């Protein structure tokens, strides 16, 4: 008998008592009108010791330039923002950047798919303006531009909006660890500096 047949057989035998399958409603909080989700999002991102700033669309080019001043920057091929002097990564081209080449760069600028206010999370689905997963991982500084209209209140709202067929990366602050005496330290293998610019 194959391992597959044997395991499935054991599982069926284990459930031969015909247990009743339970159901339970998934709780969802009614939105609190007094809380501005974009403000909450900014506070919660900052709680993780990420840098957060808000600006208008007109101010964005200048803010971006300041954020990556003096750094060697990589951007995804379809980024709709102007980052002077940046290297463009095209995942589907033949001369895609190697991990070692990405490691020689300092920063990456991307957009996000959405932001979650309750948890201070940005979610990338690696679609337009976000690039393949490695470019937001290897460089030490991630500058992420989130439009205020992309911020949702809570985790269930994110699941309403996200496409299950895409690879997803949820990012809540810079890389961190609590492995030494359960004290939180920011900065291990992922980007040690996360900079979120919210455009309102």
């Amino acid at each position: 008998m194959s391992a597959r047949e044997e395991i499935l057989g054991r599982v069926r035998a284990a459930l031969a008592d015909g247990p009743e399958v339970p159901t339970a409603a998934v709780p969802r909080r009614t939105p609190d009108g007094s809380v501005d989700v974009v403000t909450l999002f900014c506070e919660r991102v900052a709680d993780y010791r990420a840098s957060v700033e808000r600006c208008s669309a007109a101010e964005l080019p200048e803010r971006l330039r300041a954020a990556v001043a003096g750094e060697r920057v990589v951007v995804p091929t379809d980024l709709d923002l102007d980052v002077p002097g940046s290297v463009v990564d095209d995942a589907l081209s033949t001369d895609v950047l190697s991990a070692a080449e990405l490691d020689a760069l300092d920063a990456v600028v991307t957009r996000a798919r959405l932001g979650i206010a309750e948890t201070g999370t940005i979610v990338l689905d690696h679609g337009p303006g976000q690039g393949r997963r490695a470019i937001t991982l290897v460089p030490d500084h991630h500058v992420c531009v989130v439009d205020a209209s992309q911020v949702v209140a809570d985790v269930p709202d994110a699941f309403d909006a996200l496409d299950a067929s895409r690879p997803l990366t949820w990012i809540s602050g810079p890389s961190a660890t609590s492995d030494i005496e359960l004290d939180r330290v920011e900065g291990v293998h992922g980007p040690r500096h996360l900079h979120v610019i919210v455009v309102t």
Partner: protein
Amino acid sequence: MSATFVGMPAFPTAARAALADTQLRHNLTHATHTIRDKRARVVAELPEWEELRTAGAATKDRALLTLDEQLVRLEESLTSRGAVVHWARDADEACRIVADVAQAHGVDEVVKVKSMATQEIGLNEALAAEGIAAWETDLAELIVQLGDDLPSHILVPAIHRNRAEIREIFRRRMAASGRPAPDDLTDDPGELANAARLHLREKFLRARVGVSGANFAVAETGTLVVVESEGNGRMCLTLPEVLISVVGIEKVVPTWRDLDVLLRLLPRSSTGERMNPYTSMWHGVTPGDGPQEVHVVLLDNGRSHALADQVGRQALRCIRCSACLNVCPVYERVGGHAYGSVYPGPIGAILNPLLKGVGSDPQVDSLPYASSLCGACYEVCPVKIDIPSVLVDLRAQVVDAHRDRRVPKPEAVSMRAAAWTLSDSRRLARAERISGRAGRWLTRLAGLPGPGRRWTSARDLPAPPRESFRAWWLRTRRRGSRS
């Protein structure tokens, strides 16, 4: 890691040694209290927490009680997204599959994401026997691996080490397996984390094969999920050409939407954060992004045995948050090694006997007794596993498994003697008179003599009362009826 849990003594023996280690107790008290407080703060932020726990339990039950259908569906979804699905009955079969894939690519090393399933099956040792080095990349796992140590906590395997000990391990051992620790390394946690970053970066950049587990596997979409903090997980899931994920069959959830509840429960219960720094979700192969060859090993290794236990099957809901360890008064004092398994603490005390079965290994049989049944673990469990009830049921199973011994245990003999005495009122009255006489000249018993000493060596035994209840009742009622 060359150390293993094989041949560990039963819990009481191991616990006695651990209790004598004052440094260990200091490290554990500090760490468990820190994380306990953090968890309590972020859980208090959610008024819907109790409903979330109920929903989390129901979500996992829905998967477990239809597990055969879910597994077939998961296999279909994964295959349609370009993954190769393997099935492993036990640890040896799973290790063989991983080694074969690695050897097919001619590699002599793999990078690993922290994974309980691969620890459970002893994958690192199995790969080492084939000449393949498995580099642990989680900081705590790295500390354990470099220190030739054993994990003592589900989330923070090096919880028993303090910063000074970690500095020593890095300074002495890093050079043997790659980039050495900086000469001026201090015991500042930020510097220690940076030393790990530098040491592992070269391994991430050159690795061709990555090995992971998964926190969740979605039957509907073939999505695998890894929840982590450091970014080592993202490195291993993204940079290598080949990815092998070893996934316990109980990790399956039916629908993508089910992740909503579980991702609201896990980080707050585990690290005490609103959300963990990084969560990766992927489905088989994504063209132009990440590993282009993806293997998934579905692992039984006792899970179907646990599923057959009608009381104990709820343990398979476990999402490995380790909240039960952090609140357990027993774990806090003895640490994780005393449980003799990669799954320590309250969840380990039920999971090990359920996966391995009782009645054959004294170490496993000792675990259901490694608890005061205080219930703190049940209160914090995000998927409402009633650990105390399962412990009590497993204790009964352990006793039942030894009923046909030719020489009964002293405990069984004394229980039989008690049953004989208590089943007849004259016999009981006689016993009460004898013990009452003893109570008149004893204020406290130092301990029982003979075989009873093993019972009283770890327990206070009150002196017997001078007068039994029945004697008191007869005496006072007679007096009352006269007046």
